[in-house]
């Protein structure tokens, strides 16, 4: 199939080549695919992920002629000891306008705890138009025992939002990241080692 002059390659050389190819595919699977996937999702906005940092150079000019319905959904991951809900469940907005929505969370334990909220936008096509100026999801949130916190997200929905979208759902999932802020550091790759092994459970 691939070797036009097979007799010119010795068995050992061919074996070594094939082993190298297999090793290369492993490296491709672990070290190439995940970053490419992340970049692909970021560029295309697929997966409904919004940017993990504040949007820059956004000017709030509300397009009064268009109305959007914005819905909030909250989830607590794996029955973790949290109460987490939006202050209002639905609001009507104009594209281009600057808005603020509040989310309320309570630590239901008598210990110091840290949580990380992970956002998702549906439909996915709206994700790249959903610009956050400030969000509690940008960093891990620390809670004293039993503490209740109101947490804001300030955002602008870009007025270039495609016409077929008239409803956007913003979802946050609350992940318990353990008892200390160290654990809340978001491990991005294997370099972080074993010391935070239980951080993401």
């Amino acid at each position, binding site marked *: 199939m691939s070797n036009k002059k097979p007799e010119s390659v*010795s068995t050992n050389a061919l074996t070594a080549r094939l082993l190298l190819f*297999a090793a290369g595919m492993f490296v491709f699977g672990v070290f190439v*695919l995940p970053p490419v996937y992340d970049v692909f999702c970021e560029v295309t906005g697929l997966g409904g992920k919004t940017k993990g940092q504040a949007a820059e150079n956004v000017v709030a000019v509300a397009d009064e002629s268009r109305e959007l319905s914005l819905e909030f959904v909250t989830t607590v991951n794996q029955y973790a000891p949290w109460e987490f809900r939006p202050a209002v469940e639905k609001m009507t907005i104009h594209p281009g306008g600057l808005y603020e929505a509040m989310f309320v969370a309570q630590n239901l334990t008598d210990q110091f705890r840290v949580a990380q909220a992970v956002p998702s936008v549906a439909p996915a096509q709206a994700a790249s138009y959903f610009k956050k100026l400030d969000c509690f999801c940008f960093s891990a949130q620390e809670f004293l025992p039993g503490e209740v916190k109101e947490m804001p997200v300030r955002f602008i929905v870009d007025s270039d939002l495609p016409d077929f979208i008239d409803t956007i759902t913003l979802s946050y999932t609350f992940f318990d990241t353990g008892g200390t802020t160290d654990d809340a550091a978001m491990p991005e790759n294997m370099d972080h080692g074993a010391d935070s092994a239980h951080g993401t459970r």
Partner: protein
Amino acid sequence: MSTAVLDGHAADDSSEHDHGPAKGWRRWLYATNHKDIGSMYLIFSLLMFFFGGSMALVIRTELFTPGLQFIDPAFFNQMTTMHALIMVFGAVMPAFVGLANWMIPLMIGAPDMALPRMNNWSFWILPVAFTILASTLFMPGGAPASGWTMYPPLVLQTGDAFPFLIFSVHLMGISSIMGAINVIVTIINMRAPDMSLLKMPMFVWTWLITAYLLLAVMPVLAGGVTMLLTDQFFGTSFFLAAGGGDPVMFQHIFWFFGHPEVYIMILPAFGVVSEIIPTFSRKPLFGHDSMVYAASSIAFLSFIVWAHHMFTTGMPLTGQMFFMFSTLLIAVPTGVKVFNWMATMWKGSMTFETPMLFSLGFLFLFTIGGFSGLMLAIVPADIQYHDSYFVVAHFHYVLVPGSIFGLMAAVYYWIPKWTGYFYNERLGQIHFWLSTIFVNVTFFPMHFLGLAGMPRRIPDYSTQFADFNSIASIGAIGFGFSQLLFVYIVFQCVRKKGAVATQEVWDNPQGLEWTVPSPAPYHTFDTPPKVTAETAFS
């Protein structure tokens, strides 16, 4: 008759000093002979076939009537997961590697596989891997229960079995990669002098392509499960949303492996029936070269269709369209193969011995599985069929009367060459008819169940599904016990009961394997054979 043949062979190789196999357990543990290793692979896969099959019977017994009767849902999930892992990695894949070991050197005129010691390793890793996997059944938290696809975050909830699952998958992958390298090197470097690539038999060709597929995707699976392991134990977040990862990425990685994997399990079966149908039609294979190109096209396409397993994860329209059309495109080369087999039989003087019956069963029933695959490829239909029993029916039609029938056909076709004795033709035909009837009784009703909305991987169901489930369970029990007949037939040959096979075995079959005596001597082709129009495609 066979003595004459043996004498002739001895005269040919008078210069050779043949030590024969070592005695006792050393022959097997230290085996480097391709025939010994091939036999071990085949016996191991037969054991795993019954081990995984008994789990299928546990599943079907529970599903015989609605409600929970015998096992709890957690154990049910362990059964579906283990059944799939064992059948895919323990039964079908090693069985084809066993056939490759036995037949590729005989078909290309090589004295042995190119890397005999690695061959020994790649076999002996398997019993270790499956002992580890089977031991998880007795661990706290039970065996893996997330489905063989091991999707996170569910798979991360596996109990103590989790690292053992990952480690056993690693071992299976290492074994497959070594086996694949061995096949490629053997085919590239060890062919008889005049055996050019396009003169090679189809079974060798399909295995060469399969080996490249294995080499390309098994490391990706290994990478995927390694990331699961580091997510669970070393604080990474490849697939954990809390740390910025994405569980859907695992599905992409898994199916980048998983879709070529289904062709890994079917291409060698294509090769087998491409050997058998010409023999029993008494005509050369129609369109040998087009078969080669069709198999290569299927292999190429298998890399760009993976996301058709994931239509319901949320995908933009262009993505859905791309994966739908690339998937439908696979029907073209597959159709070339099916029509070539039919053209091979056209006006042939056909007889219907057991290998031919299994090949014809393969042709009909695999094509049914192919058609339901086309239905599943269509996005709007798939969104309805996804994770329903229709999917179960589809992949069992391509795997049981596809891959497994291909394997059965191969065993009946070549066992006279392996043992020197014919199987019992009457029992073989009874085995075929029992298998064919019961396989349809088992899996055909599953199409209706799926279309009616019964989800897969569920231990209980609504009473409206009761009748078809009972029928499927009866079929499964019938199919399972029919396979005991297969074991009996095979071991009758091994025990040298039955008609003595000639060197040619069948009526003027094509291929170098029929130029060595039956049973094939321990060492064959110490001097490369002459390749003629009789023994190779031209």
